[in-house]
């Protein structure tokens, strides 16, 4: 039986959403300070207004329930699902005020893309965007990459007990330490540590490349955030091609790979458990998948006249592969080159890499390596059962933070999410085709949106149909929440608003 939300549930959900919106007003202080430092007075006024609006909306939502009590699992699912919409909406306000978007929907597209770390953008004249607005774009990536709930939990916003439900509903299930708040804090600290070191390295490289000191620092910071959080936004319109620097590309590749590995495995590495790290099914699946896809990519691209020489293949190809599998979305080729210089085979290999994505519990999107590993293990188990005598009991195990037995529940969960991703990719491709776009590009774009990969083949651009824009936003949102939270949210809302159920419940109450 579907459980219907009561008015009490709505008020509790509203209260917690209000807390998250209030928290976003703190994040908005960063671009405000940036604007003041660089004397960007018009953006400064926009950010002050956005902070004020966040305070009003957040406080109004909190008034729905003064003493909310603890969140139960259903409420936590809805809070998490709606948080990504409400915060994307609030984040869109300063973006729209920047004047770099034709419509509010275009700005909302970039807001959703930033928060979900997709990285696709339809901004106009990015090269003239203020530092404050650029800073806000990367703060969105940082919040979204770590997870809105993880960030809020690390600040102790929800307490320990409510936190567990919220943590699970954001697509995370593994704990570094048993305490959920400490786990969130570990993730936040680890990420900030990597970002700080990477910022210093990249800022020096940018300065050597010829940038002035403030621009070198900001570019270093933004690139570090975007690569570690596998976001994909860049400060300049030509993405990573702008820097024309192989050393910068190498550092970014390292950061993207680190960002796409499960945070729990990072903690094992931190503890010095190298054996646990390299024996893990996820790491091994990742290694095999990337080697196979790199070989296919190289074979395919060698037929291309532009990218067939070894130096070009190594420089452009390897970077694209890392950017695609980590679902970052950086490009060191132009969008035009993707569709004209690459072979269609290589183009589809990039789509396949985005489709699978990175490690579970990382900042990457996509189906995830652990699910692929589990599904392959399940295939092995099925073949073994077919070949084994009737009396035999087949047991298949896998290594993930210790040896585990492959259970039907684990396989069912992995298969469910796998099927949901594949269906979404297919539906998104059909929606693109129905809007008159080329089939290959539609498939590529749909995968890029739902996997939060963000490498665009050119379909996402200013003036794209609003219906397609909305569908892609839904794909980004669904992909980031790994579907189950979103589906649960939709079911809860439909069941709650269904008039037949409302009447029935009133009749039950009267009798």
């Amino acid at each position: 039986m579907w459980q219907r939300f009561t008015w009490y549930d709505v008020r509790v959900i509203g209260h917690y959403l209000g807390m998250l919106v209030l928290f976003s007003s703190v994040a908005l202080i960063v671009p405000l300070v940036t604007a003041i430092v660089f004397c960007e007075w018009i953006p400064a006024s926009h950010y002050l207004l956005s902070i004020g609006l966040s305070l009003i909306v957040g406080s109004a939502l909190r008034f729905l329930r003064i003493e909310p009590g603890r969140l139960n699992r259903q409420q936590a699912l809805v809070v998490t699902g709606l948080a990504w919409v409400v915060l994307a909406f609030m984040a869109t306000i300063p973006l729209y005020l920047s004047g770099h978007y034709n419509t509010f929907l275009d700005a909302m597209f970039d807001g959703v893309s930033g928060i979900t770390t997709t990285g696709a953008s339809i901004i106009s004249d990015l090269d003239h965007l203020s530092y404050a607005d650029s800073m806000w774009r990367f703060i969105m990536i940082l919040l979204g990459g770590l997870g809105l709930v993880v960030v809020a939990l690390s600040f102790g916003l929800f307490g320990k007990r409510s936190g567990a439900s919220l943590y699970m509903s954001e697509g995370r299930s593994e704990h570094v330490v048993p305490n959920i708040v400490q786990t969130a804090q570990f993730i936040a600290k680890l990420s900030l540590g990597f970002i700080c070191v990477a910022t210093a390295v990249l800022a020096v490289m940018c300065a050597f490349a010829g940038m002035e000191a403030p621009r070198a620092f900001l570019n270093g910071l933004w690139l570090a955030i975007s690569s570690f959080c596998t976001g994909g936004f860049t400060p300049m319109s030509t993405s990573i091609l702008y820097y024309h620097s192989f050393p910068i590309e190498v550092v970014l590749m390292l950061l993207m790979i680190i960002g796409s590995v499960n945070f729990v495995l990072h903690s094992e590495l931190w503890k010095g458990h190298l054996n646990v790290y390299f024996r893990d099914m996820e790491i091994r699946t990742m290694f095999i998948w990337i080697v196979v896809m790199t070989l296919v990519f190289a074979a395919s691209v060698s037929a291309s006249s532009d990218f067939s020489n070894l130096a070009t293949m190594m420089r452009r190809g390897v970077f694209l592969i890392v950017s695609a599998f980590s679902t970052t979305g950086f490009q060191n080729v132009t969008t035009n080159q993707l569709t004209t210089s690459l072979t269609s085979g290589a183009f589809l290999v990039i789509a396949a890499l985005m489709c699978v994505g990175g490690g579970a519990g990382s900042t990457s999107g996509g189906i995830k390596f652990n699910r692929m590993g589990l599904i392959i293990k399940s295939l092995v188990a099925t073949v073994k059962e077919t070949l084994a005598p009737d009396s035999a009991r087949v047991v298949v195990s896998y290594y993930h933070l210790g040896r585990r037995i492959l259970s039907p529940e684990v396989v069912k969960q992995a298969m469910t999410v796998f099927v949901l991703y594949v269906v979404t990719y297919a539906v998104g491709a059909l929606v693109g085709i129905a809007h008159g776009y080329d089939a290959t590009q539609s498939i590529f774009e749909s995968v890029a949106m739902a996997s939060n990969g963000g490498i665009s083949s050119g379909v996402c651009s200013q003036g794209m149909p609003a219906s397609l824009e909305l569908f892609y936003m839904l794909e980004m949102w669904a992909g980031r929440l790994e579907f189950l939270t979103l589906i649960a949210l939709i079911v809860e809302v439909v069941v709650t608003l269904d008039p037949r159920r409302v009447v029935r419940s009133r009749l039950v109450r009267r009798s």
Partner: protein
Amino acid sequence: MMRKGMAAAALALALALPAFACPQAAFADEPAEGDNAVNVTQLPDSSFIYDTSITDLSTADTYYDKQTVQVTGEVVGDRITAGDGRHCWLQLASPSDSSTVSVYLTNESADKVDTYGAYDRKGTTLQVRGTFNLACPDHDGASDLHAQVVTVTEKGKATPDEFDINAFIPGMVTVMIGLAMMVVFYLLRERQR
């Protein structure tokens, strides 16, 4: 009627004039003498496309590859060193839309740029003539334009924001309302406890 007649006469004159002015044009197959000689073995040269837009280059197919083109646009971003000490990279943005092209040029040519376009700056407008590469073999497949001739068509200028307190009033009002709501919420919660 009168105007139409005059136009027809002008057209006839325009067509007839070249025949009188350069009689050899009617006999182009016959070699002329001196510097004006027509080389009948000359193959058609299609490697020169004049006044291309940056938008065309950003959506270019193989037709534009290795062609000499001329584009005009605003310099945005930074001057990125190319590593050899003699060349650098500039980003040239289209005046009509967001499209850009990477220009590879000598440091002497880049010295002509006085302003690099950004939020509060309009960059120098350059006219660049050079060879467009869809995937440059010298730069590991980057799509670029190797500049041969660089001309400044318009100087850049700074356009800093002026501080206007009136622009901050809506923000200050909303922040004060928001803070007041937070204080009221806090008081209500304390009263309930």
